[in-house]
């Protein structure tokens, strides 16, 4: 069987939006220990115009590096008029990679929007994290473009990763 084709989320996906999903410390996650962080950024198009109608989803491991167990690592946030998204979450731990490798802490981001036939996927790594040097996925990205996947700590606990859909400094998107 062949997969069903992806179609754009369009401009009216907010009908299924739940703004509280941008806070990953909600519900059962509230009691979990870890480092509280904010992940934020601005989404712009090929003209540098902010994308004010995007849906950003994140998927991440818990502080212990485990998926699907304990920490519920899913979040969703609508971009605002300035194209900005903002999640509050706990910093993920390192995750097992291919073979016996270890992946540096990272958060997977998927961006859906009007004009995107399929969502685009990237990762937010944490700048200056020593494990980045040996990360098997970052190693696949040309060095000059790696900074587009490195969130910078722009204020204590606030990590910023801007997403440029097209053009100069275009974000590295992953074919997953």
């Amino acid at each position, binding site marked *: *069987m*062949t*997969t*069903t*084709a*992806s*179609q*754009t*989320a*369009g*401009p*009216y*996906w*907010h*009908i*299924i939006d739940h703004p509280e999903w941008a806070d990953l410390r909600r*519900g*059962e996650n509230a009691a979990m220990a870890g480092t509280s962080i904010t992940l934020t950024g601005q989404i712009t*198009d*090929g*003209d540098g*115009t902010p*994308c004010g*109608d995007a849906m950003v*989803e994140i*998927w991440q*491991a818990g502080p212990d590096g485990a*998926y*699907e167990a304990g920490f*519920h690592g*899913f979040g969703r946030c609508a971009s605002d008029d300035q194209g900005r998204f903002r999640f509050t979450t706990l910093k993920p731990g390192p*995750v*097992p*990679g*291919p073979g016996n490798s270890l*992946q540096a802490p990272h958060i*997977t981001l*998927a961006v859906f*929007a*009007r*004009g*995107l*036939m*399929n*969502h*685009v996927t990237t*990762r937010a790594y944490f700048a200056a994290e020593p494990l980045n040097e040996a990360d*098997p*996925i970052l190693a*696949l990205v040309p060095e000059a*473009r790696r900074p587009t996947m490195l969130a910078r700590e722009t204020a204590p606990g606030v990590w910023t990763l801007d997403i440029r*859909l*097209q*053009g100069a400094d*275009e974000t*590295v*998107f*992953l*074919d*997953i």
Partner: protein
Amino acid sequence: MTEFPRPAPGTWPPMNSPAYGSTRKRHALHPPIAIPHTLSETSAPRFTPSAYPAYADMSVHEGQAAMGERIIVGGRVLDEDGRPVRGAMLEIWQANAAGRYHHMRDQHDAPLDPHFAGSARVFSDDEGHWQITTIKPGAYPWGNHAKAWRPVHIHFGLHGQGFAQRMITQMYFPGDPLLPLDPVFMATPDAAARERLIAKFDLDYAVENWALGYRFDIVLRGRNATPMEDHK
């Protein structure tokens, strides 16, 4: 291990689809970088019914029936081997019978229906089956080109068993004269792949004296290479 092969060439719309104006400044110029699937791609959120309650009936809102033609839409979520995808979360949204979304930014001069909110959330069962009750949506203008109207459609977002399966699509209705004129629908090069986006009129889903039915099966990326083994 569950595997998530890339979609076959031509079966998904290209990111750069110039006839759909919004793609022009939003598609990446660099090809995406292929990565091996790690836990980050093969794992997926678990949406527990307590935190993500299902609501399958869009035809009634706050106790009052919505205007329009009541229909039942159902189908199965399958993988590329035809195996059911169990426990997939489907998020569904659509315009009302007049072609208007319950959305601040929708300025189409068509009536809103106070008894139609336009979203549903359901989960596939052990056989992959899911079903909703709704109102057949209307077509709406969208300004992409002269006299551009979207064909009648329902938006579907799917969360499967790996983040690599995450997908948003649209379901169309059979016989819609707008389909061959729609740059979103037509962007998928492969005619058979486009056809699979069109629901089948299906009396098996109909309920006597109450609602007609449509069937929409959704195939997610993925095949079960070793069926006995869970993906963890």
